């Protein structure tokens, strides 16, 4: 199962470090990462492979949303099938 993780919020040190460490702990592999900073605003989209994940999608959503909230970041984790279905025939 592929996941899409999107992060929006004020730029700060350690955003990607925090996310990637959570993913590593859960045995989730990062496949692609696109990140921009405009006027101090951080915007990231990450595609990850959760095939061998040690936790469920909803648990991961709770962990990342919780950590994001502490830093003032909006973190969303979505099942990638929604993008695959919408954009590929």
């Amino acid at each position: 199962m592929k996941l899409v993780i999107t992060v929006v919020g004020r730029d700060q040190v350690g955003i990607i470090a925090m996310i990637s460490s959570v993913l590593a702990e859960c045995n989730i592999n990062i496949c692609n990462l696109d990140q921009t900073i405009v006027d101090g605003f951080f915007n990231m989209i990450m595609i990850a492979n959760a095939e061998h994940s040690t936790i469920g999608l909803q648990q991961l959503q709770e962990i990342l949303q919780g950590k994001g909230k502490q830093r003032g970041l909006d973190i969303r984790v979505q099942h990638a099938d929604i993008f695959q279905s919408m954009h590929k025939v």
Partner: protein
Amino acid sequence: MFTIDDIRETNRMIAENRLDVRTITMGISLRDCADSDCQRLCHNIYEKITSRAERLVAVGEDIGREYGVPIINKRISVTPISLVADRMDEREMVRVAVTLDRAAAAVGVNFIGGFSALVDKGCTRGDQTLIAAIPEALAVTDRVCASVNIASTKAGINMDAVRVMGETIKETAVRTADRDAIGCAKLVVFANAVQDNPFMAGAFHGVGEPETAINVGVSGPGVVKQALASAGKQADLGMVAEIIKRTAFKITRVGQLVAREASRRLGVSFGIVDLSLAPTPAVGDSVAHILEEMGVERCGGPGTTAALAILNDAVKKGGLMASSYVGGLSGAFIPVSEDAGMIEAVACGSLTLEKLEAMTCVCSVGLDMIAVPGDTPATTIAAIIADEAAIGVVNNKTTAVRIIPVPGKQTGQLVKFGGLLGYSPILAVNPWSAGQFIARGGRIPAPLSSLTN
């Protein structure tokens, strides 16, 4: 594999343009619940609904959370109750409605459809009893929706039933007068009703349907409007149709995904995806605003019917390829009180009942959520139903009337139904009488369906 831009586009549709799945509706057959004893019948119905739909709301919420797309409503449709409760008397029919209401509340769905009768050719005793029980049933329940199919292309129009429905709507309005006649917002009169409609208030689980089925209704008028706005004013109407098709394809793919996933997780067969653009009163979720984006100054003005025809056709063409099974009503909805643009158009005088009737010739589904003065005669309401049914029967399409004669209110006054049902100024009704026409009764014969010029 999709690209980063694809992700941005999808998430923008959800976050900014209100893309959502409007409803996951579980159709449940109640045919095996029939019993001559009312208490046993109600027990059977309650047990069947609560066991089959026990996980519906939780599964819907899980899917919404995991895919990041809002699923607004989880609902249930059941076998037309007149078929299951044919032997009940009027008081017992109301008990069945209360049972449906309790079952819906127990599983956490906001509406349950199927307090219905199919009388396009004639009424059985049970059909008559159910129709007589509708005002009371809608007054004493919150979640039950009723519908009556009074016409079909194969059978013609049952004008006796049309007359009775005019009176039933008036009576329902009076019984729920303290809540701005909200009972009428849960009562639909159909011509050519479909068996697998997931949308309320007209949903029921038809006789040709399986034991249970998952039907999904998509939405997304805001996404279509945004796509047209991005294309600019110079795009010609061929290009406009093309943009709507592409957008409808994407919207429908989300519905298809949700429908497949819901049916897999619930272990219920996948019925259909309904390709509809269903507006809400929220800003940026209006079908009328799409028509205005196409270049009609105000919805209801000249050009509106043509613009709506383009929209309705393109939505179907785009959606068809995106789903393996398409059904339900499938078309753009024009419920007046549920669409911010329609409400504005009525308020400024550009949208009238007669224009709405013309618009229903080219779209789904009919005169929908239309508030009229409370003193509108029952025969006039019946005649409006007959007009709308004639459009459906002759053109071989579904049409419906959901009209609300609000007691004590006059043309131009505002009525508020709340939530997704919205609010609306009261529309003017043509004052000339159809009393004698309606009093004739009988059945209008089925139309010729060749020599179609």
